[in-house]
């Protein structure tokens, strides 16, 4: 078909409309078969390992105290759902992640604005921030536990510490990259400093903040979970690490399953929100 398009300059009626039509139908059928095959394989990817896991632990080929079994994990999940363990721990971790995210976002953007308004301060302080940024910030968890104690305060502090730097560097970069032309236009049109900020500079950060929301929430969740490993009294991470310490392997797998479900749902939700917002940000 392609050859025909290239060699003719005038529209030619298809010589035999029946052939391409059946060809197309054949292609469609083939595509349908492949698609169903793909779905079959996806189902197998889930079912076969689970079945194998159950079989191996039933036959005691793999040690149960390490690997548990799907059945035991399921029982633990049901138990946790009924007694409210999942709800209270998952909501605790999510709350930490979100509180920390918003606090970190606020501080990060505020610092970026401050250092943009006063490049002198920026020149002095930004090298320090870059230095701290080079340390894996999640490693601060034990320090924050020592400072803020077990539980809520130290968990949120770690999330803030992780999020502040990401958002500061992005917002500062965004502010520095604001199109000079737009700034000149705004000034030429008589915009005040305040108007320049609200109409040109802050929207430039806003777009970035929205586009990085999903990544940052993921980071915030990671930080919240690690903080619970180290100094938690509640939360998903605490469930996982305390089950490890007491060798309750079913609990470890159950806690991981809860994380996958909660974080997966959150991710899907944020993806949808992102799609909505990208329509909005296209206009900025």
């Amino acid at each position, binding site marked *: 078909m392609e050859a025909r398009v290239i060699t003719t300059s005038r529209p030619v009626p298809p010589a035999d409309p029946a052939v391409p039509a059946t060809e197309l139908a054949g292609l469609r059928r083939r595509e349908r078969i492949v698609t169903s095959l793909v779905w079959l394989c996806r189902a197998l990817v889930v079912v076969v390992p689970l079945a194998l896991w159950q079989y191996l632990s039933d036959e005691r080929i793999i040690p149960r105290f390490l690997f548990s079994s799907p059945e035991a994990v399921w029982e633990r999940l049901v138990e946790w759902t009924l007694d409210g363990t999942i709800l209270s721990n998952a909501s605790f971790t999510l709350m930490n992640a979100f509180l920390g995210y918003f606090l970190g976002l606020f501080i990060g953007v505020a610092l970026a604005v401050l250092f943009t308004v006063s490049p002198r301060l920026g020149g002095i302080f930004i090298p*320090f921030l870059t230095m701290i940024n080079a*340390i*894996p910030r999640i*490693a601060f*968890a034990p320090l924050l536990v020592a400072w803020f104690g077990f539980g809520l305060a130290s968990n949120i502090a770690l999330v803030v510490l992780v999020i502040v730097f990401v958002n500061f560097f992005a917002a500062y970069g965004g502010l520095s990259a604001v199109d000079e*032309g737009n700034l000149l236009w705004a000034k030429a049109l008589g915009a005040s400093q305040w108007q320049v900020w609200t109409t040109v500079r802050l929207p430039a950060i806003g777009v970035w903040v929205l586009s990085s929301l999903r990544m940052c929430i*993921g980071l915030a969740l990671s930080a919240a979970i690690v903080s619970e490993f180290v100094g938690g009294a509640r939360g998903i991470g605490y469930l996982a690490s305390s089950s490890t310490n007491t060798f309750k392997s079913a609990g470890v797998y159950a806690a991981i399953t809860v994380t996958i479900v909660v974080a997966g749902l959150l991710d899907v939700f944020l993806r949808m929100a992102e799609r909505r917002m990208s329509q909005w940000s296209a206009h900025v």
Partner: protein
Amino acid sequence: MVTRTDEPPTPTAEPEVKRAPRNWPWQLLVFAAFVGVWHLGVHAGLLSRRSFAEPAQVFTWMWDWHSSGASLPHLGFTLSAAGMGYLAGIVLGASVAALFVFVPFLGRVFNPFMALVNGIPKIVLAPLLVLVFGLGLESKVATAALLVFFASFFNFSGGLRSVNRVLIDNTKSMGASRSQMATSLYLPAMVAWTISTLRVGIAFALLGVVVGEFVGASEGIGWNIKLAGELNQPERLLGALITLGLVAAVVDRVLVVVERRFSQWKLA
């Protein structure tokens, strides 16, 4: 934002930049003030000695730890675990990415799973890996490899998919074999992606090892940090944390230099 491309290249003789104000005296002052306040705070008892140590104590502890050689096994443990996990993760991630791109059927089957995993904090698997692989080096290597694997996988599959479709079709129609396409099209296109993966990966590797050490270990820098927190030894906690920061900074510097060296290869 519109970027204008029709502008003439900037003239080589750039206008003299205004002499930048010197920052370093101020930075020295800020640093001195920070250390001074810290010292006085601890000295005067405003900051609890259980969670804060005087700056001098931290420095002395670090000096002793490193000069006596006591730090060596810990540095070796953390760095070798991170190095092994890093290599394994990068290689596995790149191979699986290539497999999924060049065998589209496999890609179609597994991509939804990968997207799901991408959205969850993989670090939650650290306790499981410690449970399965034990308190030793293996579990730290596994945690690092896990984090690096996904970073590498997503980076490389993004890179492989971004190879110009027109170039692929052209090389094919000119009769390039699979190996020729790999060496003359995919490899050069992947250089920039590889370099960015290498740099991101090292941060993930260190992170994975340190978190693995937090969850369960008997040596390593992260283990020192965690243990010091539990034993209320703030000078040890801060000293080990600063050591980790220095190690991370040095490794990152090395990779920046490598990045600069190879980024000249980037395709225009």
